[in-house]
């Protein structure tokens, strides 16, 4: 099953060529990497191209609300121990972007593919993956009303007929509900700080009981499955009870969790956890996330937090006070236009940090912080915020388009 054992059909070749041409035009026109437009053009020439490209690869899909881009990178790095990998490493995670990424790796043995939550079932049907890694599900982009539990339900239905090993987080009840229709599941105790989207039993609607790390429904018996892999502090514990140290350049508990799931997924392809985890150390900034850039004599760490669960994990990895924190929130299309979610984030966790507020929706943040009883300063833009902090480290946390704005501004 390794490499291209059979050549692509003339039609598929034509589609790949047309897609590359469109991508090149897009790049020349200064419209980004062109991977999405290239994939779109290629799919128009050959609608089955994604399935055809995937046929030559051992594919693993990665999906979640948070952490899917990073996990895709970690897992790709781990699998490189065994052979070439093709991956949509830049986060173009819908069918066009995935097609484009796969078309670029004709010599590869593995395809490590990040998939947008809404497309997971469809992509899984198309590419017949060997494995699927599922990390977490929580509220995101409220105005699109993608009810989190409904998404879990769709995954459950879509994955029921897919013959893949599913590597799933046992600590997220919605993930467990989504994954447990699959015939082969490897459960990983990967943890989850955010719990407010899973107080209701996904099966019967009863109230979930959550004593310490465990969870169960007292009404229907749906409960946390026994994990075979676990994240335990700074270690991944494998099915034999051996604890392997995690060494990452990426900060935070959430990335250790991503590493644990990646190690379990890599093991499904025969990569030893020791080797897998050692290779993961290579992964640095992912699409600018966690990058530290020098800007106006300050060291800005760029942190992306798109939704309440993401903010919670981010607060747990920032430097202690008095490190200043810049917060930037937008509410453009890609962010979701309903800013109510700001009130699900516990900003009191920032007490003691000087807080500088920017972004399109800085007034919403200002009221949020005022009600949280915090001291803060509203600034006109990034430059004013940076100047208001002493030279040294600054943590900057931004949601999706605000993060892009930030990267552009600091030349990242």
């Amino acid at each position, binding site marked *: 099953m390794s490499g291209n054992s059979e050549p692509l059909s003339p039609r598929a070749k034509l589609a790949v060529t047309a897609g590359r041409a469109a991508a090149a035009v897009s790049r020349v026109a200064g419209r980004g990497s062109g991977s999405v437009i290239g994939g779109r053009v290629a799919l128009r020439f050959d609608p089955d191209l994604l399935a055809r490209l995937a046929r030559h690869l051992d594919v693993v899909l990665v999906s979640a609300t948070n952490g899917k881009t990073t996990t895709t990178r970690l897992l790709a790095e781990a699998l490189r121990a065994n052979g070439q990998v093709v991956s949509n490493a830049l986060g173009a995670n819908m069918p066009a972007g995935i097609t484009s990424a796969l078309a670029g790796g004709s010599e590869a043995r593995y395809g490590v593919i990040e998939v947008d939550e809404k497309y997971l079932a469809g992509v899984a049907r198309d590419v017949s993956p060997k494995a699927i890694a599922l990390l977490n599900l929580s*509220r995101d982009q*409220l105005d699109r009303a993608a009810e989190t539990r409904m998404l879990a339900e769709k995954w459950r239905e879509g994955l029921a007929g897919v013959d893949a090993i599913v590597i799933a987080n046992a600590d997220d009840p919605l993930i467990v509900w989504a994954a447990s229709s699959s015939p082969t599941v490897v459960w990983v105790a990967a943890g989850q700080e955010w719990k407010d989207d899973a*107080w209701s039993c996904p099966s019967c*609607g009863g109230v979930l009981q959550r004593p310490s790390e465990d969870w169960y429904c007292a009404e229907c018996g749906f409960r946390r499955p026994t994990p075979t892999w676990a994240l335990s502090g700074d270690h991944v514990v494998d099915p034999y009870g051996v604890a392997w140290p995690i060494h990452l350049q990426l900060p935070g508990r959430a990335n250790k969790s991503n590493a644990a799931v990646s190690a379990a997924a890599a093991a499904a392809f025969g990569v030893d956890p020791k080797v897998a985890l050692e290779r993961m150390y290579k992964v640095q900034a992912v699409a600018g996330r966690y990058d530290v850039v020098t800007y106006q004599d300050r060291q800005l760490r760029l942190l992306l937090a798109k939704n309440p669960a993401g903010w919670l994990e981010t607060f747990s990895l920032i430097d202690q006070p008095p490190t200043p924190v810049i917060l930037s929130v937008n509410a453009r299309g890609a962010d979701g236009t*309903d*800013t*109510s979610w700001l009130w699900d984030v516990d900003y009191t966790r920032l007490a003691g940090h000087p807080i500088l507020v920017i972004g399109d929706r800085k007034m919403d943040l200002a*009221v*949020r912080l005022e*009600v949280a009883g915090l001291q803060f300063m509203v600034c006109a833009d990034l430059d004013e915020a940076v100047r208001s902090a002493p030279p040294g480290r600054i943590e900057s946390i931004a949601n999706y388009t605000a993060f892009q704005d930030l990267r552009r501004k600091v030349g990242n």
Partner: protein
Amino acid sequence: MNESSLRLVWVYPDLLSTYGDQGNALVVERRALQRRVPVSRVDVRSDQQIPTSGDIYLIGGGEDRPQRLAAERLRRDGGLNRAVANGAIVFSVCAGYQILGHEFVNDLGRPEPGLGLLDVVSVRGEGERCVGDVLADIDPQLGLPPLTGFENHQGVTHLGPAARPLARLRVGKGNGTGDGTEGAFNDTVFGTYMHGPVMARNPHIADLMIKLALDVNALPPVDDQWYDALRAERIAAAVQPA
């Protein structure tokens, strides 16, 4: 006023807290404390009994299935109706607003009985989801400045004769009936489709709830500069969308 204590009850955050609904509780709490009114807040999960001794009850928004579960459990519990009979104040948003009415359409597409605390009946809208900034004039009887909020729903709520519209729309869909109304109230029971959360955008509504609960006509002023800035920005955005 120092002797008074405000008992704030947040109803079913496990089911009805999809749209930052904790915000309304936080704003009421904060603005009461700023007036040196001690607050005791109780968050009641849907497997717990609703206390009947609260002064202000807040019910938030949620998706279709949790809404049905909440209605079933609230009907079985009966505590909220008893509290209102004792004069308690209820402020409800979106899915919670529909639950306070006589009936709404549940996730199975069937009529689901509500609590009958507001003379309204809700159905599911046929058109597109209502999403966007809203601007409306609140019933003059309540003496409040204009209502600003963010709507994000597909419900249509018809008001009966015993319910007054909370506000008249300048921009937005509100109750979705096309008659220019948004929300409803009757005596001490209030309902709205507005997110934001609504009290963060309209702190005077939080103050009104506190005044009703304490039975006072006025509260000492507090610094509203950030609320005012947010209101001005969102009102401008509603009138002239980007």
